[in-house]
């Protein structure tokens, strides 16, 4: 919890800052440059979309920001901490307290109920059981799943599962929400529902949102800034005027 306080007291206006960030993979003889010299500044409280076709390196970049992967060279600084310099243990703490992640395939643990899935990060944070239950209920109620706490993911629709995943991502009150194609497995109606929630969290909780998508239309409707990637490089970076809140298409 100390980490969280340190983060919130940070005065930096940049949530994420990368400098000549590279991530190369070795595949046999060939070297694949998934992320190749990306330098970016993302201001705190912004809703940013990373766009590009598959293989453009947008997910790899997201993983680097999430602290799931380590850069080959360059630096990625989130809330004043250089992720490349953190130990494995410190990176795990960073993922636990600073970032929330949402995936295309929801990634809920099938053997656990929604409440258990949502409170899982709290277990890693060693929060007391009594507080955990309250926080999990609160988070699930926030995404409209208060009544389905004891259901398993398989008993829910895709939209509901993604909402549960959102609740889990928010449970530790992260400063940075990373979403990897959050609507990729959803129909357009439930996709819109999820996107509205992302925007709500961005605006109401002041959370920085970085979303990876290949749908330009989606980005145009919600993002304040669109960063285009191809072959691991930033090819375009433009501000965007999103739709006003509550506007449904």
């Amino acid at each position: 919890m100390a980490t969280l306080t340190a983060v919130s007291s940070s005065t930096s206006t940049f949530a994420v800052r990368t400098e000549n960030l590279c991530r190369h993979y070795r595949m046999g003889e060939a070297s694949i440059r998934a992320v190749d010299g990306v330098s970016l500044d993302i201001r705190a409280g912004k809703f940013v979309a990373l766009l590009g076709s598959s293989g453009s390196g947008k997910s790899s970049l997201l993983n680097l920001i999430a602290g799931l992967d380590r850069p080959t060279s360059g630096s990625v600084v989130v809330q004043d901490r250089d992720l490349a310099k953190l130990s494995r243990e410190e990176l795990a703490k960073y993922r636990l307290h600073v970032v929330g992640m949402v995936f295309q395939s929801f990634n809920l643990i099938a053997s656990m109920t929604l409440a258990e899935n949502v409170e899982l990060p709290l277990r890693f944070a060693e929060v007391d059981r009594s507080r955990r239950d309250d926080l999990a209920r609160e988070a699930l109620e926030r995404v409209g799943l208060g009544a389905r706490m004891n259901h398993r993911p398989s008993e829910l629709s895709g939209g509901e599962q993604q909402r549960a995943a959102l609740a889990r991502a928010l449970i530790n009150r992260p400063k940075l929400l990373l979403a990897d194609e959050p609507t990729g497995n959803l129909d357009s109606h439930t996709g819109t529902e999820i996107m509205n929630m992302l925007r709500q969290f961005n605006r109401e909780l002041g959370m920085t949102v970085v979303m990876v998508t290949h749908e330009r239309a989606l980005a145009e409707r919600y993002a304040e800034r669109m960063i285009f990637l191809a072959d691991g490089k930033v090819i375009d970076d433009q501000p965007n005027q999103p739709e006003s809140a509550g506007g449904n298409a």
Partner: protein
Amino acid sequence: MKVPDLTELALRNLRESFLRNSLTTVGISVGVASLVAMLSLGIGLQQLASRRLVKSGLFDTIVVTSRREMRGMSREEERNGPTAGESRILDESARREIEKLPNVIEAYPDIRFVTELRYEDKPHLTMISALPESAKSNDAFEGMQGGFFSSDAAPEAVLQKSFAEELLGKTPPLGGQEPSVADLAKPLLGKELLMRYAQRESSQATPQGTTSTRQNPEDNNLAAASYSVVSREQKLKIIGVADLDPESMRGPMRAKVFLPLKLAQSLHVMQPTDLREISHAASDEPVYSSVSARVKSPAQIQAVEDAIKKMGFTTFSLLDASQSLRTFFKVLDLFLGIFGSLALAVASIGIVNTLVMAILERRREIGVMKAIGASDSDVKRLFFAEAGAMGILGGMVGVGLGWAIGRVINIGTNIYLKRQSLPPDNFWAVPWWLVAAAIMFSFLVSLISGLYPAGRAARLDPVQALRYE
């Protein structure tokens, strides 16, 4: 992650792949069961042996003899000990001195003599021995028919089975069924035996001799150096027939009829030593051919034995025999333990296999946990907890199973023994420390088995794990 959370998650994960994890746990159980069964058998046999030995009085008893007996048990003692002439006389005061030594429970004289017993007017010549009251707990009297002496001075006798056979004129046919103790005892209990014996009567019955001797026996050796032998009779009531021989270590010296110690002492039966000790034994104080000293526990035998040797007597105990017996059981336990552990070793491979499978299966789940903030050590500890839980569960089931196996072996052996008309006994024991140690051992083996899978799970790259379908 906190331990209760870890345990809960581990148990949940074990429940998820119920069949596979149960099978692995059953494997551990079988391993623990074989270990427990083997060791409990070893411990049981050891307890049986030491129970018998302790009860037999062989291992907590020191036989003290005077060097004058010239029945030294070893050549070394013959050479190094005091010469026969210098040695002290084993008389009543020496007995009391021995009894006062630390850790000695009692020291009682060995009174034994060969004499004639008449039963239904037929004479029988046999060795008679006196037993102290403490002999009641002797293992030999476990299957006894009738009872033990009503008092230490009662005119009663306990017969050894073979003597009972002799009295009844029943000699067992070679290789045939031996008559049971109960059958032998029925016609004999309560009957009377007439014992004819030679009583030593001091000739200092004369007034001046009695007084002077009592005041200063050393100076009156010559005056007291005579006694008379009188033929006496004593009626004895048969109150018990014992199956086993409480004096099995005495070989040819073993007695077949037993009298209470006080009674035997009061009879002043002519002892073979009396002749040899004629120069010293003229006093009223009885002189014994040997005295048995009972020590609190076999561990104190050595110290007491040394103390008695310092007093100038020759001692003999079966301490060395008991030590080699203990070594034998330690080796037996070790071998049984190794054989038992083999099954557990196989089971531990099962744990490794199950957990490696679980990693493959739960790869994505591990990736997710890492993505939402699980540290390497959280993941590692989770797998450890799963291995440990299987170990403890398997250990508990295994102890129960091992207990049951031991029980069955014991029952089976006893049925066999019954057919061979031998008394049933406990060959098998599961002491509480074995239960605790077996579960602990199973837990440790499981944790060691979990080392590799847990390390592998912890090192899993979350990006790849999340990509894995």
